[in-house]
């Protein structure tokens, strides 16, 4: 059931759903579809925030499925399946730390989000308790979701110059400053992130977006080509090690 649906920013709305089942990890997603719906399948949407009774999504309208979600109001029914997929592998960058406590000294990590790709990045940011992080947030126009974060630095980029620096989120990005890089956004941004991380020798994790039918690994519609062979964005992903992803030319 919908708890609230409110505007977060230009074209982005925040949908809060009653949810007291398995608590999602940062990076995971749910399949969502309005209970009264004219579309066939759920849409894979990353978690933006969660507590013991609510899971919240930041959603941009892309087509008929997300347009229906945008119209939902408090008390409306929703079909929700999850949490699904992998989570941000914080402990891999520093095995001595559990997720959420990556490191409390030394080099910070970089969190990079482009557009609606910020949603799982901001869930990660809120889940970091002691790890210092810099947030790189890229928007087409205007900003959303940047309040009440504990980022060491927040660098805002907009394509139209309406806020922060005019330009793209990776303009001037120096990967060597960080112990790890976590990114979600448009595929060209992720490909560039992977290249910068590799050049600097810094481990990076990317959240990839794919169309999905089942969300549970059965249909093979969301395949990601990796150096280890095909992997499913819905089960082995959506989070992948950057150096394993083979991007389309």
């Amino acid at each position, binding site marked *: 059931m919908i708890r609230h649906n409110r505007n977060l920013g230009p074209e982005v709305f925040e949908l809060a759903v009653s949810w007291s089942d398995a608590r999602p990890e940062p990076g995971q997603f749910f399949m969502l579809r309005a209970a009264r719906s004219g579309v066939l399948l759920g849409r894979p949407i990353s978690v933006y925030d969660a507590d013991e009774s609510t899971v919240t999504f930041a959603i941009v309208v892309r087509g008929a499925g997300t347009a229906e979600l945008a119209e939902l109001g408090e008390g409306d029914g929703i079909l929700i399946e999850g949490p699904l997929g992998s989570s941000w592998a914080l402990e891999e960058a520093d095995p001595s730390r559990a997720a959420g406590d990556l490191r409390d000294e030394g080099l910070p990590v970089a969190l990079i989000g482009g557009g609606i790709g910020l949603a799982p990045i901001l869930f990660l940011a809120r889940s970091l308790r002691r790890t210092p992080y810099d947030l790189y947030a890229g928007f087409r126009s205007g900003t959303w979701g940047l309040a009440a974060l504990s980022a060491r630095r927040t660098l805002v980029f907009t394509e139209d110059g309406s806020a922060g620096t005019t330009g793209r989120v990776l303009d001037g990005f120096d990967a060597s400053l960080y112990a790890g890089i976590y990114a979600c956004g448009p595929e060209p941004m992720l490909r560039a992130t992977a290249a910068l991380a590799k050049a600097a020798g810094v481990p990076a994790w990317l959240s990839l977006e794919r169309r999905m*039918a089942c969300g549970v690994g059965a*249909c093979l519609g969301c395949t990601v080509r990796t150096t280890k062979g095909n992997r499913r964005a819905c089960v082995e992903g959506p989070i992948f090690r950057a150096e394993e992803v083979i991007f389309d030319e």
Partner: protein
Amino acid sequence: MSDRLSLAPREAADEPFHTDISVSFAGLRLKNPVIAASGTFGYGREYADFIDVSRLGGVATKGLTLEPRAGNAGERLRETPSGLVNSIGLENPGIPAFIEKELPGLRRLGTVVFANLSGGSLEDYAEGAALLDSADGVDAIELNVSCPNVRHGGMNFGIDPAVAAEVVRLVRARTRKPLMVKLSPNAPDLVGVALACEEAGADALSLVNTFKALVIDVDRGRPVFDNVTAGLSGPAIRPIALRMVWEVAGAVSVPVVGMGGIASADDALEFIMAGAVAVEVGTATFAAPGAMLEIVDGMVEFATGRGFASVADLVGLARGRASTARDCGFDPS
């Protein structure tokens, strides 16, 4: 007309009544007539966390080829009105790896296993059939001559009656397991292909696979899929698939398993009443993992509520006769 063919609901005062929903055909016995369709249920384990797979009548595996296949590049899915267009391209680990890694778990799920066999050449089909024939835990082979998403093989083997018959004969010679041939709705003469497969030794036929379809991305001015065309499934195809099942069930004497956009018990009953002994359900599972179990429950409720002793008694009901009833243990006399 006998009482059991009456569609009137039973009187409330009637004795408690239980319908036998098991079905038997082609030497197989399924606990109910609902089978997970190939390509929509992985190898069973993918959905095992979401539903009780043992409650299904059967599971058809993702299409298997002798060698591993990576499947198609580029976009693989696009939802269309009441439908799903896919271009997966038979991504699978190859039959030897399937037998070693997937089959043991699939067997333990407690349902009838249909290994869906595809191939790029006649030799591939024959060799694949031989491997599956010798694999414990494969209860039947569903021979796929209907995949529209590969450049070589696949649907090309299911379009022409003579070519289809040749594949079926070759595979028939390599297996004693029940052989069900999955037909393409894209064949110009579907009944001709069906009759040719029956003549060549098929124990059963399943239909339909997806309809060849096209989606264009108007922003890019290009087809969405690298292969240009892809396969349409889902409720959009259901009335056409039903008509095809009706025509094939009326022409052949082997059992027919119907599929195409089934999403509810009533949808499944339409195919059964058209002459199918069982149904496969695919795209509906993507929309709701529990869809198949709801269909089973709904069929039980329908048949029980109307006093049918067996789901088999509903087979071909809409035709005014029980077309393939002998295979279901129904005595039409």
